């Protein structure tokens, strides 16, 4: 017997190492009980903390130094054609103001109806800007790492968004970094609504990285390009956030009466630089008063989401104190349009709710 182990010691060692890993793997694998599951409620394994701690300092150095260099070039390039761009943006702004006047009437009418129905909606009460510093390095696990962690107020399960749309949710929060599970990962899920048809569904990531909506019957008229937003029903993403658009519709042969609806995410999940973590959600019924009216998640998002490049430009025009935003409940009068103000000031810290913003 001794001779056997000595003679085949390499093979024995290989089998032993594989056996240990298989046992270790088996103890970690849990059969999913919830389609929305993505986070590990039982904490983080020490080896993951060590590995992240080892890599993150280099990643931060890499990202921050890269950002500095890029900003030098982009600042120069941005200055070119600024006058023409400014004129174009001014024209766009005028058109948007006309559009806004029309939409305000619709919104006010909707609010009256909501109040009649005792309708409660979620809104974003507090957000935290974060820099994306790394990925898992493989398409087999679609996660990113951000430079904000538990000490900054990030917790497992919080929603992560960009100005363009939903990104994912925090799957693990270490002290100074967090892991974010993207909506394109197969273990990810979110409650969504096909906006035109008002159809609810569940958005699931796939192995190919293209999320799809499940549980929509095949007799529904879904078209390519239809907009998809969050329903708020999953208690992770507030209602009304843009998720993406329908990229393709086909029968789901594995689940026969249902459709396979592929979604093109609104946020470019492969090129994320900055994200917002929604650290606090509120819930309140609508009020008809203009000053103190509640602001829905989508409205708040539209006003608060930062874009690094825009922020720099806006700061130059009208700097505000760090940590402040314009009052979201106050809308400038249409007759006397106010000059464009920065909606968000670049501030890595938590942006507190402002006056007129319901807590």
């Amino acid at each position, binding site marked *: 017997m001794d001779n056997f182990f000595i003679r085949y*010691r*390499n093979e024995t*060692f*290989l089998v032993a*190492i*594989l056996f240990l*890993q*298989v046992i*270790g*793997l*088996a103890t*970690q*694998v849990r*059969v999913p009980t919830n389609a929305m599951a*993505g986070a590990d409620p039982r904490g983080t*394994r020490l*080896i*993951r903390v*060590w*590995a*992240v701690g*080892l*890599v993150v300092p*280099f*990643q931060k150095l*890499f*990202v921050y130094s*890269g950002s500095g260099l890029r900003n030098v070039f982009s600042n120069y390039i941005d200055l070119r054609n600024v006058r023409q761009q400014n004129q174009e943006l001014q024209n766009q702004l005028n058109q948007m103001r006309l559009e806004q006047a029309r939409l305000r009437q619709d919104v006010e009418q909707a609010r009256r109806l909501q109040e009649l129905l005792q309708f409660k909606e979620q809104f974003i009460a507090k957000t935290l800007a974060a820099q*994306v*510093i*790394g*990925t*898992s*390095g*493989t*398409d*087999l*696990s679609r*996660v990113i*790492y951000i430079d904000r962690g538990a000490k900054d107020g990030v917790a497992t399960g919080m929603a992560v968004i960009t100005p363009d749309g939903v990104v994912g949710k925090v*799957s*693990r929060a270490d002290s100074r970094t967090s*892991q974010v*599970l993207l909506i394109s*990962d*197969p*273990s990810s899920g979110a409650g969504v609504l096909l906006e035109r048809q008002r159809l609810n569904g569940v958005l699931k990531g*796939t*192995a*190919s990285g293209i999320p799809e909506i499940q549980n929509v019957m095949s007799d529904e008229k879904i078209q390519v390009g239809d907009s998809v937003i969050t329903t708020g029903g999953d208690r992770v993403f507030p209602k009304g956030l843009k998720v993406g658009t329908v990229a393709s519709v086909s029968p789901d042969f594995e689940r026969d009466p249902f459709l396979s609806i592929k979604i093109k995410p609104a946020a470019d999940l*492969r*090129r*994320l*630089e900055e994200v917002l973590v929604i650290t606090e959600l509120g819930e309140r019924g609508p009020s008809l008063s203009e000053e103190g009216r509640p602001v829905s998640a989508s409205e708040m998002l539209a006003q608060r989401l930062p874009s690094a490049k825009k922020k720099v430009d806006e700061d130059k025009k009208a700097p505000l104190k760090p940590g402040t935003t314009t009052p979201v409940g106050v809308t400038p009068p249409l007759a006397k349009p106010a000059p464009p103000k920065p909606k968000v000031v670049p501030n890595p810290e938590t942006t507190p709710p402002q006056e007129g913003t319901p807590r």
Partner: protein
Amino acid sequence: MARVSLSRDGIEVHRFNLLASIAIPIFAVFLQASIPLRFPSFSIFDLPLLVTIFFAVARRNQIVGTLTGCIIGLFQDSLTHQPLGLFGIAKTVIGYAASSIGVRIDVENPGSRLIMTFAFYLVHQGIYHLIARNLARMPVAWHWGQELGAAFANAFLAVILFTLLDRFKQRGR
């Protein structure tokens, strides 16, 4: 810095100093996790796998090759949200296999390195998918075209990378 001696079959056996043995795999994992931020297509490469193959082949010791693959794989697993051991098991097998081949065949020239890495990449992906699907019950998809393309890309990168890493080998007893 590495030392070289001869195996029983007369093939050179290289050794690396501790710093290179630790820093190179960490650097490989760091690059693997960082570069896709700017160049998403880079994720078709598997630098930790290439480093595993390089060390295993150069050392030509099956136990050390197995351990190298195991540690690098688990390290890579730690950066994902998946159960620990998926990359660990796949790279353990590759570490063992690469060092076994290194004991028998001289794989120092670019041609053999290209073929060897191409084959090992496919085996690695096959093991990963097998474990992920059957043991971890994860929804994974195998696309031959994609996997073959990635295997070619990794094989070409390996030829360049191994030439660079050869500098860390030191000749002498």
